[in-house]
């Protein structure tokens, strides 16, 4: 077979792509009308399970750019069993994540010892004003609904005991 000059081959590639786009449709997604679902592990937004948080400040300290703000106070809770001593619990007053600063590294979710933070693949929370990117406790708790189950693992994976 004689060698096709590269110039014509190049034209052929673009024409093939043209044909494929016309027949099979484009590879792009028309975003606001149709959406691609991000994978379950995607790091979209951090959700807070408020009940689990003990305001231990581990996430605050491990955040590389200090975008988490926690304030809390200690409170006496009624005893678990009748006749027991009242327990001391940490009450969460403020839990804010500033998504304008967050770099989505996921360290806070990793270090949390009480499973209070989760990743949600939700990504549509842009705001016209940068100050509105500071999500407070209530908003972070709302994201909890969007947290998916952890995906199944590939063959040969060892089930881990913790988390």
């Amino acid at each position, binding site marked *: 077979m004689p060698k096709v000059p590269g110039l014509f081959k190049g034209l052929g590639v673009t024409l093939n792509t043209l044909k494929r786009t016309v027949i099979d449709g484009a590879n792009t997604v028309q975003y606001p009308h149709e959406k691609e679902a991000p994978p379950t592990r995607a790091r979209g937004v951090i959700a807070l399970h408020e009940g689990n948080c003990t305001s231990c400040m581990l996430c605050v300290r*491990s955040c590389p750019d200090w975008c988490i703000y926690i304030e809390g106070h200690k409170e006496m809770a009624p005893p678990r069993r009748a006749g027991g001593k009242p327990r001391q619990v940490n009450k969460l007053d403020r839990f804010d994540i500033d998504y304008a600063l967050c770099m989505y590294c*996921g360290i806070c979710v990793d270090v949390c010892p009480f499973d209070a933070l989760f990743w949600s693949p939700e990504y549509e929370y842009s705001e016209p004003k940068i100050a509105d990117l500071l999500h407070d406790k209530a908003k972070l708790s709302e994201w909890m609904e969007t947290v998916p189950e952890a995906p199944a693992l*590939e063959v040969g994976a060892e089930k881990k005991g913790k988390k």
Partner: protein
Amino acid sequence: MTSTESLIDRRQLAYIASQAADARLNVELETDGMTLNIGPQHPATHGTLRIIAHLDGEQVVWAEPSCGYMHRGYEKLTEVRTYPQVTSLVNRIDWLGSFANEVPFILAAEKLMGIEAPPRAQWIRTILFELSRIANVSLFLGDLGVQLGAITPVFMAFRDREHVLNLIEATTGGRFHPNFDRIGGLKDDLPAGFIDETRAVMKTLRNFCTEIEDLLFGNEIFQSRTRGIGVIPKDIAMQYGLSGANARASGIDWDLRRDQSLPMAWDKVDWKVWTHPDGDSFARCWIRLQEVRESTRIVDQLLDNIPAGPIMAKVPRIIKVPEGEAWVSTENPLGEMGYYVVSKGDLGPFRTKIRSASFNNISIVPWILKGVYVPDIITILASLYFILGDIDR
């Protein structure tokens, strides 16, 4: 210009010369050089690199890269961050192949601690390393077209690179900045379906390579633009410390994946290190094209037999790296990337020296740009392939 003059001197001289040229312009009709600032904001530098070029007509008399517009101080930042935090910082260095940035740092820390990741973690690390190489270099192949005036290849590159990014996202959760590597192993195991999906994607990528070869590399115009342009002889490449595909295109048969033994899985599979004797721009681009193909082969073979087992070695929850110093470098998409980690037994490193490939690769720019034409500046810069984050850190 003699080599004894520093960068500052040259810059001042260039400024004085250009001022004098302006003053003389209306006095007499003498031909005088023109200083052209390519960058810091310029479509061809994909970032904020500035090339000061002194031109005579369209020919470059001398040129000097001036970097530092995007300096983010990572070496200093590592001194005040803990090891897990540093991992998330360093994958911003070469942002197109970010997983590859984490690996040498983690390996250095593991070397200091005297532990080794379990085999399954090593294999997954290698797979992700090669995936990030594909993500990086396939974008280079498309971008190359844009630099030379062909607009279509870059869209093809983005189209097929998307699949690789999807794989990385499905595994690590981050498209660009995985932050997946941990001291002693990996954060998580592969999600179900990863192997089959990766096989399909590798097939797409090989098609993409063929397409790019037909569209760009086979094109006579492309060849006339790149062949014989920006030739780097072997000894010059050695002297300037080039690494990666730039060195291999000059005939230096040197690949850290093959030439050093790391706790990674490259030595378990069959692949080839490509070299090219020419050392010109075409050779550099061609080597990268072959590298994408080799990477798809490596990934395919690695997928065949991932060992079962844990993905995390036994490490304490709060990691304190024992005192000592370690140097680990790997063959990153852009060339040799290494970390020299000094530890004083703290939560974070005491000092880290980052050896990034692009910074050394563009050091050859003043030498190589002497006497070329303005369009060739772009060709040569594109074929040297740097990433600004990798230069300025």
